[in-house]
């Protein structure tokens, strides 16, 4: 607990590594295999987002606790161009590259908490969390 795992994202193998590490951490937190898969998929989307728009960045995975609820937190940071229109970027099916436009909005659907903080010209930070359901 309290440990965090920092993973550099600079190539597509890093995306695979990040989602595998995320799945492992979700297993430690006690998430069901279905939820582990969901968390891995969300990590995959935001990791790819870094690669597509900022070329490189970092993802930090950690366990979090809120009262008696346990969860995982995933923070993706890059110093890329930033997102000019966050609202639009969060619309399902919208993509400025050749993605399917399911990336960020898709990840948001999968997680319980999802926050985008972006400054054009400086970079983007995405923070997302998933909490474990009782039994």
């Amino acid at each position, binding site marked *: 607990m309290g440990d965090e795992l920092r993973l550099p994202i600079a190539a597509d*193998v890093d995306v695979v590594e990040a989602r595998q590490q995320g799945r492992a951490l979700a297993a430690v937190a006690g998430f069901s295999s279905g939820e582990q*898969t969901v968390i891995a998929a969300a990590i*995959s*989307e935001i990791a790819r987002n870094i690669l597509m728009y900022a070329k490189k960045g970092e993802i930090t995975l950690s366990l979090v606790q809120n009262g008696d609820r346990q969860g995982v937190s995933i923070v993706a940071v890059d110093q890329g161009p930033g997102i000019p229109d966050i609202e639009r970027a969060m619309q399902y099916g919208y993509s400025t590259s050749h993605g399917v436009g399911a990336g960020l909005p898709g990840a948001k659907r999968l997680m319980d908490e999802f926050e985008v903080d972006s400054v054009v010209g400086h970079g983007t930070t995405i923070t997302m969390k998933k909490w474990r359901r009782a039994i």
Partner: protein
Amino acid sequence: MEVPILRQGQYLIASIQSALTDADLSHLREALIAQVGRSRCRGVIVDVTALDVMDSFAVRTLRDIAHMARLRGAETVIVGIQPDVAFAMVQLGLTLKGVATVLDLEEGLAFLDGRTKGGLGGGAFDKSRRPPSGPPRG
């Protein structure tokens, strides 16, 4: 990680063995489409049993394979999607609409046999065979 593509009769079978990077997936798409044309096969099976997660890129690549193969005269079926993976996919909004999906390799072969011989085979029932629907469909 290269995905082996085997030829069996009129079909090409690509069976994914482990987690794939985006580049691996793109390479698989190109290799399959090239081979469909060369071998003039009638069907393509992509076995994804080994994948423990599928994100938007993976799903888009599979969809592209199916559409491109169709343009080159071959029917594609995706086999072996794991229950957890399927559930995560639909939550992401990725439903592989218009692409045939069946349980496993055996079902995939039966599906293609049915398709290429003009029968229903083992495949998913398509919309023209859907049962009459109730009020919500009108």
